[in-house]
């Protein structure tokens, strides 16, 4: 396999994705209200894709389980910040455990706690899951998603069950979300070039040779899984404060598929891939949405039938895999084009 991945610090690799995110956010945020909301969701998606990149991209092990951590983060932050009178009076929450009702913190404490809770759960489940390889690992992470979804969907003491938790306070300033995402990029970048990050990529490239160099596959995977679970929890927390509501169904198969496809389309082996994948899939989705609603795009109106958007996105994804299975960026980090002198 010819996968990318960086080994030493390069300012260009780090600043490229950051600059692109800042510029995109700056222009889209002021365009219109709907584009502003799209930008906010896109930043949350990006956080999730970055979380997946840390584990899936570096280890090469597919995880369908990260939706659980996002769900958990979203639930924790939503439940901690929703107004107490909503929690005690909303019909969807009439069987809620009483000790959950008086809990009330502000958004930022909620986000920190949601990241920590998800990180701890990721570490604990990782102790079991990281012993597995290949397909068994994929199915086991899927089982984790299944268990989390099944419990939260059916248990009405824990949360709203199949209904929604309303009135979660929202973050209206896009730049707060952006700062969180940029901070995450820096931390993930430092992780990727750290000893743990490099060891993990070594196990991805050759699971036989890496242990011979003294790398414990279990240990490096567990570290990355915990870190990426923590980020996924933070992503979930951000989602809930953009959407203003928590619903279990939002973090199941479709969410898993969308975020994984963003990672794979961009190129799972690099942070730059996560940026490109998120922008591409969100952008294509938004353009198709505007076509469905017969809205003009740059002054041109192209109408497509209602419902065809989802078909086209999925087809684009499969076509992308056929065209370039290691992603648009081919797993490389950002670098400025070089001009050779002849």
């Amino acid at each position, binding site marked *: 396999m010819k996968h990318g991945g960086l080994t030493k610090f390069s300012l260009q690799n780090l600043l490229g994705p950051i600059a692109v995110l800042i510029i995109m956010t700056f222009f889209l945020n002021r365009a219109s209200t709907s584009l502003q909301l799209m930008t906010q969701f896109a930043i949350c998606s990006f956080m999730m894709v970055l979380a997946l990149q840390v584990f899936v991209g570096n280890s090469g092990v597919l995880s369908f389980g990260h939706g659980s951590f996002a769900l958990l983060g979203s639930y924790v932050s939503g439940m901690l910040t929703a107004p107490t009178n909503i929690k005690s009076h909303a019909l969807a929450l009439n069987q809620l455990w009483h000790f959950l009702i008086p809990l009330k913190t502000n958004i930022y404490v909620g986000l920190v706690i949601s990241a920590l809770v998800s990180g701890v759960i990721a570490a604990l489940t990782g102790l079991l899951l990281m012993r597995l*390889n290949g397909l068994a690992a994929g199915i086991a992470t899927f089982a984790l998603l299944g268990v989390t979804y099944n419990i939260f969907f059916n248990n009405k003491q824990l949360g709203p069950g199949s209904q929604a938790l309303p009135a979660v306070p929202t973050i209206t300033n896009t730049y707060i979300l952006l700062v969180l995402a940029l901070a995450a990029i820096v931390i993930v970048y430092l992780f990727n070039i750290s000893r743990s990050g490099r060891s993990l990529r070594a196990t991805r490239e050759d699971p036989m040779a890496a242990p011979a160099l003294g790398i414990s596959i279990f240990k490096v995977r567990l570290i990355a899984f915990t870190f990426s679970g923590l980020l996924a929890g933070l992503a979930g927390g951000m989602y809930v404060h953009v959407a203003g509501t928590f619903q279990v169904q939002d973090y199941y198969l479709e969410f898993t598929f969308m975020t994984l496809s963003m990672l794979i389309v961009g190129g799972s082996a690099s942070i730059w891939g996560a940026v490109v994948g998120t922008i591409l899939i969100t952008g294509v989705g938004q353009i198709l949405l505007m076509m469905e609603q017969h809205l003009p795009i740059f002054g041109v109106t192209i109408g497509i039938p209602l419902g065809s958007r989802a078909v086209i996105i999925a087809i684009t994804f499969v076509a992308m895999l056929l065209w370039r299975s290691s992603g648009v960026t081919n797993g490389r980090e950002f670098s400025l084009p070089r001009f050779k002198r002849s």
Partner: protein
Amino acid sequence: MVQSILDAISLGGLYALAALGLGLVFGVMRLVNFAHGELITIAAYTLVLTAQLPLILSIVLTLLVTSAIAFMMELAIYRRLRGVNPAIMLIASFGLSTVLQRVYEFIFGALPKSAVVAPFLRGAFTVGGVSITISSVITVILAIAILLGMGFLVERTSLGLQLRAAAADFKTARLLGVRSNRLIGAAFVLSGVLATCVAFILVVQNPQVNPYYGLNITILALVGIVIGGISSLRGAALGGFIVGVILSALNTLLGNGRVYAYSWLFLLVLIILLVRPGGLLSKGTELERV
């Protein structure tokens, strides 16, 4: 009690058929075909939409449609992905599954389509004071018949020999003269046939067909082949059967807690995987072929 046991066996048989369809394809090309569920869905749609035709005609038509789509899947998508990382193939099949779901939703609408298929298979009869539904008996008989048929095909025919050889070592099988394109195509067509059988049984029990009709059983069958041992067809069928029986037993035993049946099932799966990562029928600890 008799009915519960029969239900468990019939559910097990049904899941074994679905798992076998997945296992066949996995054997020849190391691909977990997540889109197998969409083959089941299209088979169910065809059965329901052609319900006014004579049953035999409807089944033949469904077999043709489903096998054709299975073959097209291989030709258009999977053939181009041969040799890439299995994780990418899994994701691609996940994507294909979404494409087909959305296409079904686009064509047939999100609301369920329904029609009575094979009405003579509904209802119940009594033996010695115990009431037994006809459909569960038919499911058991059908599942046993198909499993025996598949067993014969795999163990006794030249195609079966090639399938087993390819599952054991694809490269060597090719060197020995197995034609890979033809064999993989055949495996997909067979998986389409199995999907039709599964769809028939499902539709008789529940004729409300929506775009996600085959999703649930595919996830469970997938779990089945992994715990049974993905490297052998026998393991796949056994795993599917076990999942069906466990799920049925959990539904009976848990009473009001049956909404959590999936959680217990997945927990059990995790434990089985931790004890035997290669599946129940695996020999020792075998590393995934790279």
